[in-house]
């Protein structure tokens, strides 16, 4: 087994990270929050990067890449707290449509002129869909209640859960970064608060949780891409590991920021609320724990030494 990424994968990820860090900082989130959440210029930028067509097969005008690449980019979207419906449409709907053999609209998606918000029975509402608007805990998500309930399709659920997990990794990384930087500059008792073990150790624990969640998510992406029978278990594991890491980091980051962390003025809450929202999306914690429970105890997941890493 080899968890290293190819140079192409790394280059692609870095270019997206650089692009988003240059064009989609916290000031953009604040502007969107005040001005109605969506900005066509941001969407256009993503289209021009080729991201809407990342998973669209080349014959339909896309880049024809796979779920591992998509998960890497989804993590970058999380890091930037991107609210545009890129992940939902390009990394969840597209592979599902391809899987269904429904290729008619793929070109329009690649060109950025079509978005496909997909509901699921576990997700009665979706971001940027049409229907009864709902107020989300995440101020930048335009949630709407679908009139009809979505399909109970397991592959769709796995795609949604995987991409949520990937975004959660990026969100967690970003929150850890914000908290660490704050702990370096905020001084109390004559020194940076980060010098106190009471804070330092908490941030270190977040780093442990995040770093161990990463390979779990990449593993799940590869498993889903390859269509292995245990893919659903890998996806549930990924959702739990990344969600737990993100929530732990969100909670720690608020505590490290002290009272400032409880204000709207500090950027942190945008990331914290997105983490909260994504933890519940595409199967909440209880759902994914149950899926692992059932796989392990119900016998559908082979156990024993030769299967532990499969």
């Amino acid at each position, binding site marked *: 087994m080899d968890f290293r990424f190819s140079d192409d994968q790394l280059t692609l990820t870095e270019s997206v990270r650089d692009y988003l860090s240059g064009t989609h900082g916290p000031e953009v989130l604040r502007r969107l929050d005040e001005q109605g959440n969506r900005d066509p210029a941001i969407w256009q930028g993503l289209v021009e990067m080729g991201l809407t067509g990342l998973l669209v097969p080349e014959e339909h005008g896309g880049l024809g890449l796979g779920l591992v690449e998509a998960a890497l980019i989804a993590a970058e979207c999380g890091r930037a707290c991107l609210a545009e419906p890129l992940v939902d449409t390009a990394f969840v709907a597209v592979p599902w449509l391809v899987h269904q053999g429904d290729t008619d609209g793929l070109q329009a998606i690649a060109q950025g002129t079509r978005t496909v918000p997909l509901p699921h029975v*576990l*997700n009665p*509402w979706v971001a940027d869909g049409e229907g009864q*608007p*709902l*107020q*989300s*805990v*995440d*101020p930048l998500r335009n*949630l709407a209640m679908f009139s009809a309930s979505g399909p109970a399709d397991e592959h769709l659920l796995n795609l949604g859960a995987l991409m949520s997990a990937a975004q959660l990794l990026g969100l967690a990384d970003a929150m850890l970064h914000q908290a660490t930087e704050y702990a370096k500059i905020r*001084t*109390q*008792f*004559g*020194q940076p*608060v980060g*010098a*106190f073990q*009471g*804070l330092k150790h908490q941030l270190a624990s977040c780093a442990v949780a995040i770093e161990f969640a990463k390979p779990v998510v990449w593993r799940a992406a590869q498993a889903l891409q390859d269509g292995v029978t245990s893919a659903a278990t890998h996806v549930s594991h990924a959702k739990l590991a990344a969600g737990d890491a993100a*929530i732990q980091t969100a*909670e720690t980051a*608020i*505590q490290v920021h*002290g*009272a400032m*962390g*409880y*204000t*709207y*003025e500090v950027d942190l*809450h945008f990331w*914290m*609320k997105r983490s*909260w*929202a994504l933890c*519940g*999306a595409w199967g*909440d*914690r*209880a*759902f994914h*724990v149950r899926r692992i429970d059932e796989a392990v105890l119900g016998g559908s997941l082979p156990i024993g030494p030769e299967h532990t890493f499969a």
Partner: protein
Amino acid sequence: MKLGFSAADEEFRAECADWLNAEMAGEFKDIKGITKLTASPERRKEWEQRLGEAKWGCIGWPEQWGGRNATLAQQVIFAEEYARAGVPGRVNHIGIELAGPTILAFGSEEQKRRFLPDIAAGKTIFCQGFSEPGAGSDLASVRTKGRLENGEWVVNGQKIWTSLAHISDWIFVVTRTEEGSKGPKGLTFLMMEIDQPGIEIRGIKQINGDAEFNETFFTDARCPEDSMIGAVGYGWKIAMGLLAFERGVSTLGQQMAFRNELDELIAAARANGAANNPLIRQRIAKAEIGLRLMRYGALRMLSNTDHSKIDGAALTYKIQWASWRRSLGELAMDVLGQAGEVAEGSEYEWDTLPNLFLYSRADTIYGGTNQIQRNLIAERGLGMPREPRGDV
């Protein structure tokens, strides 16, 4: 040890319940069940006055100053019935629980006459000017300056996190009155009227969209020389005495509010089936145990008649309740699942449980973070060496 309530106590309970229920069914029906501290401020002030008129505003105070000289058991009972009746929290909490007791303990006779009757009557709402942008956990590093000029204190600087300053009449302020002094030395405790040109208040929006606390700016703000509590340079001693009151009887009422929150969570878990999940069941049981643990701990602490003595047990109280409630918020979100993340309608207005999740993040920060609490327990309670600090 004597547990349980006497027949006289039970009679008192009936009296409290009757009065509170009648008020919540009558003239103050509109504020029943409000949990948000900033909601309906004008009606809440009227409610403070109603409590004052009926002598229910500060029952633990001496009768002379508008209280009832109530026993600890009676205060416990009142707090329980207050929460049970769905009466909203006190907007003059700071006046009743902190400013009043501080004036009683450290103020002059003149100051008692001037302030206590009006606080008891709900006519003077107080807020607290302690923290500053650079003085949070390190409270002793306050920089707001006070100087005496022609029989008046003149104050310049900034306070932050002043809860409800925007609806308060008075603020007590810890100021640095000795030029060049550092840390806890050279501080003086002043009481200032808020409605004056030298004081400006700006709200701070919270992560839950509410704005309970404020930044408070002092630009040549003034108060008479005799608005000082204690003496020049004694500000730290007064401030620390005041913080000891923060661990007082008010915590009992708070626990009843916690009881309500836990009950709401249990009801939600039953309603949506989360109660069938063994992981959730276990955490609910743990929450119940934690609440009872706090209850007994608080009653034990308060049974100690010398409230000003900070003993080891009292030091542990804040971290216990704050951590408990924060866990309750996390549990609430796991009970609600995805439904906890949406609200119907267009307002940024949350139901009790999602709001609890956001609000409880502040519990382990204000009034001394969990990290500061652990240092206090270790250093003051256990006598461990102080954590190394930089040059202040």
